[in-house]
């Protein structure tokens, strides 16, 4: 296992109540890669991302984020990874500024640099001046933006984003994609789960097709190009 590789997954398996959800998922993400996780509802997209981040315990297989196992070395994994879950967590009682300030301190970032980055990302996502708003008073989209900023602040080598565009207005979504493109150019790998197939086809350079009761299908190179020209949830004909 190589610490330079942002993510490596080998033979990942997961079942709920003996019903297999993930069957033998294997892939690798190199620096700068962006992988689309595609599948219908219930295909196991969030379960897969949960297994990568340590939120779900796999039944078998290996996960290495920058060479670290999320279940053996969660602290090093967290340093390597930024994760935006489908339902982000925010401290409702705290103001946006306090919440992000806590993230800066917990990540051990330099206070001045951290706060400058917060200001930049708040402005980029259309939240400039929202530091004094209580998190519980944020709309769904605004709450997601705060969670996105929390995940981006420490400039992780791996970004795992679950339905990250949900609830984002067009300008903010474009701003986020711009930021993610910059991060990719700097060497970060991105895993993106979404139902917006056009976006995934346009922006990612590989994909993982998940379907209930089927083995996962990894799409790279020509297969991915063919899929991205006509994005679909069906794996047949690719």
């Amino acid at each position, binding site marked *: 296992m190589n610490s330079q590789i942002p993510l490596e997954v080998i033979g990942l398996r997961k079942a709920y109540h003996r019903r297999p959800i993930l069957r033998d998922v294997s892939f690798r993400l190199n620096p700068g890669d962006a992988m689309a996780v595609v599948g219908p509802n219930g295909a196991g997209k969030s379960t897969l991302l949960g297994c990568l981040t340590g939120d779900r315990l796999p039944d078998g297989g290996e996960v290495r984020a920058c060479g670290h196992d999320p279940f*053996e070395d969660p602290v*090093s994994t967290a340093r390597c990874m930024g994760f935006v879950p489908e339902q982000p967590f925010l401290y409702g009682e705290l103001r946006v500024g306090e919440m992000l300030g806590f993230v800066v301190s917990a990540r051990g970032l330099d206070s001045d640099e951290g706060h400058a980055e917060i200001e930049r990302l708040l402005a980029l996502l259309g939240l400039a001046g929202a530091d004094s708003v209580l998190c519980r008073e944020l709309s769904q989209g605004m709450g997601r933006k705060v969670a996105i900023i929390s995940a981006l602040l420490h400039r992780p080598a791996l970004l795992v984003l679950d339905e990250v565009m949900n609830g984002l207005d067009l300008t903010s979504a474009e701003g986020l994609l711009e930021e993610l493109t910059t991060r990719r150019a700097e060497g970060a790998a991105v895993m993106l789960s979404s139902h917006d197939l056009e976006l995934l086809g346009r922006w990612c350079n590989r994909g993982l097709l998940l379907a209930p009761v089927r083995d996962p299908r990894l799409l790279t190179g020509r297969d991915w190009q063919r899929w991205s020209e006509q994005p679909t949830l069906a794996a047949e004909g690719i």
Partner: protein
Amino acid sequence: MVVRALRLLLRNDILRLRALLRHPTAGSVLGIAFPALLIIALLWAIGPAALPDVSDARGAVGFGMLLAAVPALFSYTILFRGSDAPFIRRLGLPGRALYWERSCRLGALSGAATAALLLPFLAASSPLARPLLVALSASTVAWATSLLALSGAARSLGRPRQGRRGVLSMGFRDPELAAAAPLVYAPVLPLLAAAVAAGFVGAAPGAQWTRLALPLAISVLSAAAATRLYEAALPRFAPRALEMAFAPPPPADKGDLAVGRGLTALLPRRAVAVWARDAAVGGRRFPWAARLAWPIALIGFFALARWGADPATRTWVLAAGALALVAQGGAVVALGQMERQGPRWVDRALGLGWGSRLTGRWLWGWGLSLWIGVPIAVAWSWLAGAANGWAWLVAGAVTAGIASGVSVGVAGRI
């Protein structure tokens, strides 16, 4: 790094608490402040009449077990089900720091319970030294052994041993519940340890403070030993705990929602619909609320039938019944908290008013309490010869009423 992270987590807790006090929500007022004030007022008012007897070792053991119930029952939730735990892990804060922060939370809760149970002594102007000594030894030992027992159970569950079942899993038909047996039995250890500690301190006459040294030493050692167990268990057990929270689907032959059958046809249809919905959702999400009624009702009925003339028996049945009613009220409140996470939009979309929601929820809560209230009321009046058996039904209705009000309030605006 651990100390820095711990300081950060504690500072964050204080910040959140201060923010909650500065900007209180209806949920925090109804779900925390109101029940707390109610309990304090009740303890102050009825405390002098029901003062625990801690004059001898036997009384101290009982008082110690009562105190230990709070850390024993809440330790799992506090240690492993904190809503912010996954977020903190993703921030890369060490498990050891999280352990000590959660220990502080459990310690604060245990301290609050201790203070509450000392209120009757204050209200009765009774000497406080001996009860305080017993309470301190029991609650400290219960706190530490809760940490140890739960962390140990989590550690053993985090290492699945395929095909091997321990002696603790005997009697569980459901394989998943059998696998979680160490966790199910973990609260027994703090109850027993607190009883022993209280008995040890209470065996000496008066208030011999030097006797506190041994329970304190055991507590420090237990809490320290639990650190490594918790840290080792957390990465694998925390996701398992999340999965264990999912209720399995009900059996196919379990009846569907039924609205307007029998006597319910006489009630407002909307309220009955809420009742049927709450009973189905609450019954499947919190099945323990109904299950705990059976042992309490059976044991209470038998105890009253056999020794009902003895005032001590009636006091124990009263205490057990009251605790069960409070626990059932907790399930009713928890349903409101669950609604707050999202499902409340259903009621908004259906145009259900607060009156229907409150009535329906109260009907569910009262219905739950009747499984305890009816058998005990019958035994209380007819077998034990006491006159006020009907009060059990009223107590159930009042508890359900308070819990329903809090539940609807906690759910927030719809």
